[in-house]
Each structure stands twice: as structure tokens, then as C-alpha cells.
């Protein structure tokens, strides 16, 4: 009875691996693959020998790593969010905060971009307010600026995800044994000491698992966010690996370089799997538990 599902899973998750063979051929859309077009590792060499492609790859990897690093470097924020929210005594207020800060997680990146457009374009909210305050006299389109793209992308990601990512820690806090707090209180721990010595250690296991997973996916930022925010002014600093693969292979209306894009994607997949296995090993060594 399970066979149809096994086949489905095979067709959509395993069969694409067969598409890796395109990396070794001279491929033109519309033409089939035959051994006449077999070129071996030509595209792998091309990737490193062609100056323009090499420059592109270095730029794209830099963007990818910087933006991932910003995310990883601030991955303590959801935990801090949960801990500080837990310090608020008014439960109605707490509930309210949680409700509203989680909503952004459920809208698509296209809609996030629409918000960015509504707020930051020439006629947008920010410009109108700045004009009212007399700071500027003419609205400018902030979205068409290529400056601080890494930080802006990080900010949008945080806006969208902070409240949501905090939920796992909020649940974690409610799972901490209340007796620990009482014991700490009896021992004379104040509020901040309880946060520091009871709450934080209680959440560190969750935090370290998520941290390891995010390090393992350091090359995969996804393409949605960067795709919708991309424009002529910021295209050099916004392009991450996933988006680069898309643009290289499919983005130019049928004239893309399918084999080269396959090579890049293939190397990315292999490195990601290696990173994940590495993270898993580390987790086993430190915590004695695997994460995958």
C-alpha cells in the first residue's frame, strides 16, 4: 500500500540526482544528451579558470557567507527575546506581543517586499514623514539604493522571523522546572541571576542544536528574499548562491548556462551535506546525541 508513495518520493526527491549528469555534458535546451556531447570535467574547470565566472563566484560566496554570518551571529536574539518576554508579568500584554510579532512569519517574501515598497519608496511612509519633519525636501526611493544591503536584508529577515523563532524558547522556558527557580531564590539569587543561571542554561541545549543546524546550512539562504529585493542598484551585493544558480541557469529567458549552473548547485549540495554531517558529529561528541 505504501508503494505509490515510495515511488512518488523517489521520482521527486531522488530522480533529480540523475540530473547531475548535465554537469558533464555540453547541453543545449531542446537537444538531448548523447555521448558526443560528453565533456568530462570541462565545466568544473571552467568555473575556476574563467576569470569572469571566478569573480562572480567569489562575490556571490562572500554575499552568502556574510549574510549567513549575520544571521548566525545574531541567533541569540530569539532566545533573548523569549527570556525578556518571560520577565513581563502582565500576561495579557505578553500574549499580545506574541500574537503580533509572529504574524510576519506567515506572509510571503513578495508581501514583505510590498511592505518595503509601501514604506520606503519615494511616496512611502518614511519619505513622507521625513518631509513633514523638514529633514528632506524631496522623496528618494530607498529601495533603489545599493548601500548596506547585507544589513537591510538581515533586518527584514529579523523583522519577519524574530517573534516566530522565539516560540521554541518560550516553550522551552515553560518546560524548566520551577523548583530550580525556587531553589535559586532561596540561595539568594536575584532576578538577573536567576535569568543568568537558571533560564539561560535551561535553553542552551535547544540553542546549540539550532546553532549547529544553521551553521550546517550556511550556504543555503534560499532565494525568495533576495530575488524579490533584487534590483539594478543592489544586484552585486544581494546575490547569494541560491539566487546565482537560478539566474545563471534559468533566469535569462532560456539562454542560461544549464551545465554550469548544475555544477555550482552540485558543489553546493555536496558541501552542505558534508557540513551537516560534520555538525552531526560535533553534536554527537559534545552532547552524545545526533541532530539529524
Amino acid at each position, binding site marked *: 500500500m505504501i508503494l505509490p508513495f515510495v515511488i512518488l518520493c523517489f521520482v*521527486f526527491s531522488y530522480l533529480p540526482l540523475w*540530473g547531475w549528469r548535465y554537469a558533464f555534458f555540453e547541453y543545449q535546451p531542446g537537444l538531448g544528451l548523447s555521448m558526443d556531447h560528453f565533456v568530462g570535467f570541462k565545466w568544473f574547470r571552467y568555473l575556476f579558470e574563467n576569470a569572469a565566472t571566478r569573480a562572480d563566484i567569489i562575490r556571490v560566496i562572500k554575499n552568502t557567507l556574510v549574510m549567513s554570518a549575520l544571521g548566525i551571529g545574531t541567533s541569540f536574539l530569539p532566545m533573548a527575546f523569549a527570556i525578556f518576554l518571560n520577565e513581563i508579568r502582565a500576561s495579557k500584554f505578553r500574549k499580545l506581543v506574541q500574537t503580533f510579532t509572529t504574524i510576519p512569519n*506567515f506572509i*510571503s517574501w513578495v*508581501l514583505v*517586499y510590498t*511592505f518595503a515598497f509601501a514604506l520606503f519608496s519615494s511616496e512611502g511612509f518614511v519619505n513622507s514623514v521625513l518631509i513633514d519633519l523638514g529633514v528632506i525636501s524631496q522623496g528618494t526611493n530607498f529601495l533603489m539604493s545599493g548601500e548596506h544591503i547585507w544589513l537591510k536584508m538581515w533586518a527584514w529577515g529579523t523583522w519577519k522571523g524574530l517573534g516566530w523563532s522565539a516560540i521554541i524558547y518560550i516553550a522551552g522556558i515553560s518546560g524548566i522546572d520551577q523548583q530550580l527557580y525556587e531553589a535559586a531564590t532561596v540561595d539568594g539569587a536575584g*532576578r538577573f541571576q536567576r535569568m543568568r543561571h537558571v533560564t539561560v542554561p535551561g535553553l542552551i541545549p535547544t540553542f546549540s542544536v539550532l546553532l549547529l543546524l544553521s551553521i550546517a546550512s550556511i550556504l543555503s539562504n534560499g532565494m525568495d528574499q533576495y530575488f524579490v529585493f533584487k534590483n539594478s542598484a543592489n544586484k552585486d551585493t544581494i546575490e547569494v548562491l541560491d539566487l546565482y544558480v537560478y539566474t545563471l541557469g534559468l533566469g535569462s529567458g532560456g539562454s542560461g548556462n544549464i551545465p554550469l549552473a*548544475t555544477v555550482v548547485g552540485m558543489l553546493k549540495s555536496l558541501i552542505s551535506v558534508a557540513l551537516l554531517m560534520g555538525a552531526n558529529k560535533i553534536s554527537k561528541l559534545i552532547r552524545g546525541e545526533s541532530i539529524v
Partner: protein
Amino acid sequence: MNTKKRKSKGLTNKKRIYKLTKGDITFNIINYLFFTLFTIICIFPFYYLLINTISDNELVRTGQIKWLPKGIHFRNYISLMNVNNLGSSILVSVARTVLGTAVMVGATAFIGYLVTKQEMWGRRFIYRFFVITMYFNAGLIPWYLNMSMLGLTNNFWAYIIPGIVAPYNIILVKTYIESIPADLEESASIDGAGYLVRFRHIIWPLSKPILATIAIFGAVGHWNSFTDSMILMSGKPELYTLQYRLYIYMNSTSNLSALMNSGGNVSQAVIESTLNMRSLKLTVAMVTIIPILLVYPFMQRYFEKGIMMGAVKG
């Protein structure tokens, strides 16, 4: 009432032991301020979008609606009916969300049930076979070539079929079903009920909470996706999802009349006088958000459960 009293008494007790120091008070003020501010930042864009779709369009075009709506009207939403292709995109989005979610939930429940059956041949292997796909990925281009080889480009079923087997959801459902007492199934089995009957009458009703959880997350995922539209449907614009349609409008440099339906009983001039590009973009965005906002209160109950169960992988 009673519990409230006790709670506040507990608070004063604490206060007596530990005086609210100056540091405490400063911390509280900063804490409340921070959360108030962040909450406002999270919801203000939604509010701003709303007031800009119901205000006087000329004021909207020049960016004069900031805090409160002015000249409230709802004609923008009516004018959307004359925008080309919007109707078909809404239909596609609704269809893929409803159908895609239903099929995924049904399949996931069934697979989740089957992989708990010890007597099934190769059970562990099959379960691994599903789950391991979460951790590797052939990449975008091979995926695209594969879809095109299967004839799933420019084809509505491309939205539905690949999503039927959802490994993460299988883990959630399997874990949940394992927590259902085995006695229930056993007694039914003694009474002569086969797998399908037991699945239908015991497992399915008892797993409703987890099925609701995956249904909600699945539906949101379907509703929000747009890159599959862009990559797979390039030859069939009538199959674009609403999200991708919105993306196209957002990046459209053409004027309004190019997007509007010239036929029908509404003249071009009337349309132009009631709508402009900025209003159009924001109104379409609002239409795209509304379904999410409608199901959101209902979804909230399932967040924590879903997340915490995901943390316990089996």
C-alpha cells in the same frame, strides 16, 4: 477572581523578600518599551497597507496617507475585478491551497500510520527513505530538468503532486500516532477490522490535532509560494499564483491601462480616475494578505504544539 488574588499576593510576597530595586524598575520600563515598540513595528506595515487601500487614491499616489485614512472608500477592491489575469491567479492559488493541502494531509496521515506498523516489510528502510530526503537536495537546475522531463511544466499538477510526500510532516504524524495507545487498535483488530478500517475509524479521528497542525502549515506554504510558479509556469501565465502575480505588478513599469481589462461596461477613463498603480499594487497585496489574517487566530493554537513536536524527532 480567587486565583488572581492569590497571584498578586504571591507577587507582594516576592517583593517583600526582594525589594524592587532601581535596577529592576529601569529594566521593567526598558523591557516594556522595547516590546511595545517591536510589536508596533511588526503590525504597522499591515495597518499602513490597509489605510492606503481605502483612502482617496490621489492622496495615496502622492504619499499623503501616513497615520489615518482620509476619504474612505472601497472602490479599489471593486476595480480589481477589471484587472487582467487577477481572477485566474486567485483561482489558481485557492485551488492549489485547498487541493494541495487536502492531498498532502491525507497522504501524510496514511504514510505516518503505515510506518508505525512493525509488521510491514522493510518498515525502517522505507521510513529512512522518506526522511533522508530532508537532508539532501539535488539543486534547483536538476529539479527543474526533472520536472520538465516529467511533463510538469506549464501544468497545474506541478503544484500538487511533488508536495504529496512531505517528510517533515511524516515525522510529526508518525510520532503522534505512536503516542496513541496500541490497545485501541488491537481490540479493533480482534473484532476483525483491517488496516484501512482501523486507519479510517481509529487513527484518523484520534490524530486530528496533529493533522490540523500540518494542514495549516501546508496551506500557508501553498498560499505563499511563488518561485515554483515563476520557474515552472513560464509558458502559461494563466497558471501563475496570486503571489507571483503580485510580484509582477510590483515590478511592472507599464501604466495602469495596460493591465486593465478594456472590455466590459467600464470605460478606461473611469478606471483611471478610480485607481492608480500605487493603489493597485497595495490593494492586490491586501487581497493576498487577507486569507492569512483570517486563518491566523485559528492557527495560533497549533504553533507551540507543532514546533515542540518537531523538536522531538523519531
